[in-house]
C-alpha cells in the first residue's frame, strides 16, 4: 500500500509538480465543477476515498515546502490510513504525531499558519473536535478580523472524519458541522463519494464571512471530489474545516485523476437533474439521497439533487435557481434536525423563493437525541425516510 502510494507520488511529481502556483482565491482555481467533464476524460486510477486523501496530502506537501501535516497517530498512517507513507516521504519534520490534545493541536496549527505556512491538522474524529472548539471559534476564525488583517491563519486546514459508520456509537459518529457554521471566519467543507455504480458527489459547506476573515466548512462526497476539494481547502487563504465522511473511506471507489487539480469551494454542484423537487445534502448523505431519487423516479417523481460541498459560505444561488425551477426543497443531513444547517438553508430559501414554493421545505435529518449505539437505523435519515418526505412534499 505504502509502496504503491509512493509510486503514484512519483508519477505526480513528474506529471504535475510545480505546474501550479498557489491560489489565493477561489476564482483562480484551475478547474471548476463545470469543467469536471474534461476531468473525466483524463486517465485516473480507481481508488477509494482514503487513498484520494492520501494523494491530495501528498501533492499538498510536495508542491509546498511550507506545508506540514500533523495530528494524533498521523505519522504511522493515521487510524484511517490517510497519511500512509507520507512521513517516510517527507520526513518527520513535516509529517508528525502530536500528543493527544486537540486544543493544543489546533492552537499550534493557528500559530504555524500565522507565520505563512500551510498547517494541515488532523482531528482524529469529528467527535473529538470539541476540546479545540475554543481555538477554532475564538482564535482561528477571528484572527484576521480583530488584527485588522495584520495576521491571519488562512493556511490552516483542519481535516476531520465525521458521520455514522454503522456501529460507531456515541463518540465516533457525530456530525458537528452546524456548530461551526455560526462562526463568521470559518469555512466548512464536506467530502462526498460515489458508491458502486451510484455516483455521489462531494458536498462542501462553506462558511462565509463579510471580509476574507471566515472559517470555511467543506464536506466532500467522493474520492475525486475529496482530492479536489481538499487541495482547494488546503490552499484556500482562509481557515477551513474539512469534514471527511468516514463511512466512505473504504466504501467509495472512483476514478481519481492523478494530477494536481482543485474544485472551487463555495460552489454547489447539481449532480442529478430533475423538475419536481430539489434535494440538497452533503458528504455521505448524498449517496443515500441519490438512492431515494432513483426510487422516487420509479414512482414518476423527478428529483434534482445538489451537492452543497461547502457549508460556509454556501452557494445559495445554485440552490435558489433549482428551487425556482422545481418549487420544492428537501434538505437532508445526519446531524440532529434542530439547529442543523438544514434550518439555515430552509430559512434562506424561504426568504428568496417564498412565492415560488409549493410546499413547506422538508428536512430529513438525524433525530434530536444523542447519537445512539443500538438505534442507529432509527436515528439516521435513511433512504425510505427521504422517499416518504419527497412524496409528502410533492403531494402537499
Amino acid at each position, binding site marked *: 500500500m505504502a509502496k504503491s502510494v509512493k509510486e503514484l507520488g512519483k508519477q505526480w511529481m513528474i506529471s504535475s509538480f510545480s505546474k501550479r502556483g498557489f491560489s489565493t482565491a477561489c476564482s483562480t482555481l484551475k478547474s471548476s465543477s463545470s469543467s469536471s467533464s474534461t476531468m473525466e476524460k483524463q486517465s485516473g486510477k480507481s481508488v477509494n476515498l482514503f487513498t484520494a486523501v492520501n494523494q491530495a496530502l501528498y501533492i499538498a506537501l510536495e508542491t509546498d515546502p511550507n506545508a506540514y501535516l500533523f495530528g494524533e497517530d498521523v505519522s*504511522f*498512517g493515521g*487510524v484511517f490510513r490517510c497519511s500512509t507513507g507520507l512521513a517516510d516521504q517527507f520526513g518527520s519534520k513535516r509529517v508528525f504525531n502530536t500528543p493527544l490534545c486537540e486544543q493544543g493541536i489546533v492552537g499550534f496549527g493557528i500559530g504555524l499558519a500565522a507565520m505563512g505556512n500551510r498547517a494541515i491538522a488532523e482531528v482524529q474524529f469529528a467527535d473529538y473536535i470539541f476540546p479545540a472548539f475554543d481555538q477554532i471559534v475564538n482564535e482561528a476564525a477571528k484572527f484576521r478580523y480583530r488584527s485588522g488583517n495584520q495576521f491571519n491563519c488562512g493556511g490552516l486546514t483542519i481535516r476531520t472524519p465525521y458521520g455514522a459508520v454503522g*456501529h460507531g456509537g456515541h463518540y465516533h459518529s457525530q456530525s458537528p458541522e452546524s456548530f461551526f457554521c455560526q462562526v463568521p471566519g470559518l469555512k466548512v467543507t464536506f467530502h462526498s463519494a460515489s458508491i458502486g455504480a451510484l455516483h455521489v458527489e462531494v458536498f462542501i459547506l462553506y462558511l462565509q464571512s463579510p471580509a476574507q476573515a471566515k472559517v470555511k466548512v467543506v464536506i466532500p462526497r467522493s474520492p475525486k471530489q475529496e482530492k479536489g476539494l481538499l487541495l482547494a481547502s488546503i490552499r484556500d487563504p482562509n481557515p477551513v474545516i474539512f469534514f471527511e465522511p468516514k463511512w466512505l473511506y473504504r466504501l467509495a471507489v472512483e476514478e481519481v485523476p492523478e494530477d494536481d487539480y482543485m474544485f472551487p469551494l463555495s460552489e454547489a454542484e447539481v449532480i442529478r437533474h430533475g423538475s419536481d423537487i430539489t434535494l440538497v445534502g452533503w458528504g455521505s448523505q448524498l449517496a443515500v439521497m441519490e438512492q431515494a431519487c432513483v426510487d422516487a423516479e420509479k414512482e414518476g417523481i423527478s428529483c434534482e439533487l445538489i451537492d452543497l460541498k461547502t457549508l460556509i459560505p454556501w452557494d445559495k444561488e445554485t440552490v435558489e435557481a433549482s428551487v425556482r425551477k422545481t418549487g420544492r426543497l428537501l434538505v437532508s443531513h445526519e446531524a440532529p434536525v434542530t439547529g442543523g444547517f438544514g434550518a439555515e438553508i430552509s430559512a434562506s430559501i424561504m426568504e428568496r423563493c417564498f412565492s415560488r414554493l409549493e410546499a413547506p421545505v422538508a428536512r430529513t435529518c438525524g*433525530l434530536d437525541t444523542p447519537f445512539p*449505539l443500538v*438505534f442507529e437505523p432509527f436515528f439516521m435519515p435513511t433512504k*425510505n425516510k427521504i422517499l416518504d418526505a419527497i412524496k409528502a412534499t410533492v403531494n402537499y
Partner: protein
Amino acid sequence: MMNLTKLISSASSSSAASRSKTLISSSSSLLNRSFSTDDSKVLTIETSIPFTAHNCEPPSRTVETTEKELLGFFKEMALMRRMEIAADSLYKSKLIRGFCHLYDGQEAVAVGMEAAITKKDCIITAYRDHCIFLGRGGTLVEAFSELMGRRDGCSKGKGGSMHFYKKDSGFYGGHGIVGAQVPLGIGLSFAQKYNKDEAVTFAMYGDGAANQGQLFEALNIAALWDLPAILVCENNHYGMGTAEWRAAKSPAYYKRGDYVPGLKVDGMDAFAVKQACKFAKEHVLQKGPIILEMDTYRYHGHSMSDPGSTYRTRDEISGVRQERDPVERIRKLVLAHDLATEKELKDMEKEIRKEVDDAIAQAKESPMPEPSELFTNVYVKGFGVESYGADRKEVRAVLP
C-alpha cells in the same frame, strides 16, 4: 481434584468471598468453591520494586495480606482476563458494535485499587472501563449485555463498551473523550469533602490523556482546595498508537503535578497497587490530591480496530507477558505460599472460562432495548415523533 475438594469450605461469609460473589454472576459454581483459607492469617509480601515518590515519603514495600485475599486476587484477575479475551472474539464476530477498548494486561490496577478502598469511595475512568466495572461489583452478565447493547446491560444497553456505570457502588463510569473525566472526578471529590464523607475519588486516565490541558486545570483546582482526589495515571506507555516518549517531554507522570505529590507504582503488581492506594487514600484525606502513576501495559491494541503491532514489536509484548504479567505474578505467589496447586489453579481457570461462557449465553438471550428508549433520558422527548429502521418492514416505533 481430591486436593481441590479438601480446599472447598462451606459457604463462606468472608469479605473476599462476598467480593467474588458480586464479581461473579449468580448461579456460579465458583461461588460454591471458595478455598478454605485462613482469613486471619496475615501474610506479608514484598512489592516487586520500591515505590518512587515525588514530594512525599513513599510507603513501605512490605504489604500485608491474607491467604483469602491472595487467592481472591487470582480469581478476580483471571476472570477479568478471560472476560476481555471473550469480548475480543465477540467483537470479531460482530456481536459487539461500537468501539471497544480492552483491559487485559492492566488487571492488577483494577484489583489492587479495589482492595484498598470501599464502595463509598468513587471511581471515574475513561473508556477502558470493563474491568473497573467488574471490580466495583458489576456482574459478567451486565457487562456482556452492555457490550452487546442489550436491555440487561449496566447502562440498559444504551452505552456500550465505553459507557459502563454503577451508581450504587460509586462507579461514575466510562467516559468517551480522552481526559474529560478527570475534572469531573475533581467535582466528585469536592462533594465528598463538603459532605464530610471521609471518602475519596479515584480519577483515572491514561498516559495519552496526561497531556491534555484540562488535566492541569483539574489538578490546580484540586490542590488549591485540598480536595480528596487521587489522580491515577494508568501508564500503559502508548497513547493510542503513539509511544509515550514521542508525546510527552516528561514521561514521569507522577511528577507532572509539580506542587502535587506523586508516587510511581508497579502497576503490574496488584499488591503494590493496593499498598499505594491505601497510602494515597490516607494522604488525600489529610493533605489534598496526589498522583499515582501505575506503570502497566495493555496487551491488546488501543481499540479493536488497532492490531497493536504497528508501533511496537511483538517481542516487546511477549517480553512483558513473560516478565511482568500481573496474573502470573499472583499465580506464583499462590504457589509459593502453598495455597493451591498448579492443577487447582488451572481448574479454577477452567471454571472461570465456563462462567464467562455462561454469562455470554445469558447476555445473548437478553433482548435489545425497547425502540422508545431512543427518546428517553433526553431533556425534550420527541413527542409524537415516529421513527423506523432503514427497512420500513421493521416495526415502526411510535415514541412516547
